[in-house]
């Protein structure tokens, strides 16, 4: 079963029955209910707020449940400039998020340090966390964030639910 058609419907079987793989079903559920951890550190957070309010409505993609507790969130959206003083706090929150978890680096600063080529700013959050999606822009428009979210959903649909998403668990076994 390919990624494009994760489910199959057989008209010969009576009732509302579809066939699918466990991986595809789990991925479908995970990808369409991503609960973000809004790591708003600078002006990107304003666009993040705009994306979650009615005009852009991130709820259309099932990611409207901003969780301010890392224990309940699936995707950390690092929105803004990560200073060295803040960096280990971000890492600590990331470590508190349960697997499976993903990371979106929103905007130039979170992706690469942006215009802050400076002694005080971490040059990209990927120095500390594994980033799945980078979003360009300073700050990115809400559409760009939604596009990044859709890219992440696409990526999740292509993953093997247990082996890829619970990597640390599998390695420790």
């Amino acid at each position, binding site marked *: 079963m390919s990624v494009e058609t994760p489910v199959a419907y057989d008209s010969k079987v009576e009732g509302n029955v579809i066939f699918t793989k466990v991986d595809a079903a789990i991925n479908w559920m995970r990808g369409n209910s991503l609960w973000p951890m809004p790591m708003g550190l600078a002006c990107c957070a304003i666009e993040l707020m705009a994306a979650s309010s009615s005009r852009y409505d991130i709820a259309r993609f099932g990611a409207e449940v901003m969780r301010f507790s890392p224990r309940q969130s699936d995707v950390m959206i690092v929105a803004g400039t990560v200073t*060295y*003083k803040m*960096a*280990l706090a971000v890492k600590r929150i990331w470590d508190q998020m349960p697997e499976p978890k993903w990371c979106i680096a929103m905007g130039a600063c979170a*992706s*690469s*340090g942006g215009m*802050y*080529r*400076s*002694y*005080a*700013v*971490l*040059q990209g959050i*990927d*120095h500390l966390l594994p*980033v*799945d*999606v*980078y979003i360009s822009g300073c700050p990115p428009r809400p559409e760009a964030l939604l596009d990044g979210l859709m*890219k992440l959903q*696409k*990526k999740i649909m*292509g993953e093997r639910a247990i082996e890829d998403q619970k990597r640390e668990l599998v390695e420790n076994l």
Partner: protein
Amino acid sequence: MDEVVNKLEARFPGVVLERKEFRGETSLTIKKETAREVALFCRDELAFDYLVDLATIDHFQTEPRWEVVYELYSMSANIHLRLKYTMPEDEPEAPTVSDIWPTADWHEREAFDMMGIRFKDHPDLRRILMWEGYPYHPLRKDFPLEGKPSETPDVAFSEVAPLAGGPFVTAPTDGTTQVREPRARHLPPEPPKSKFLSEP
């Protein structure tokens, strides 16, 4: 304004080393040793009840290297006064005024953090912007903009930022602005980072 400066000079003869007027702003360069007495006199007798700002300047490669600037304002008389004094390079130590104007507490902590000027008798001279344990004073002219590596376990670390030649990268020199801050320094271009090239 003249009245205020005359009062000050009458009370502390010889303390005012230089008086400068620029666009209605009065700056007095005073002796560091009497800075506290002058500050107290300014607050109590001349009614400068508000310390607007406390700044420090690094005159790199000239002696004396350090300069402290106090911006005073009198609410009742509606006048500003600027007090300055200098310190030699090997002795960046200034008297605190945090007991005279409480707002100076955090200003002096910032000056200590960024410029490494120690304020004698300050009640709590800790870093205020950088983290405890950071070994440098980043606003000094001989500190590179890209930073230096440091490591404070469990608190923070820092690495050198890739500057790629500019723009507006300051060089530690006493030259003019054009020498000090060219629009760009010519370095070989960096290859694009692979992390931005692939797409899932």
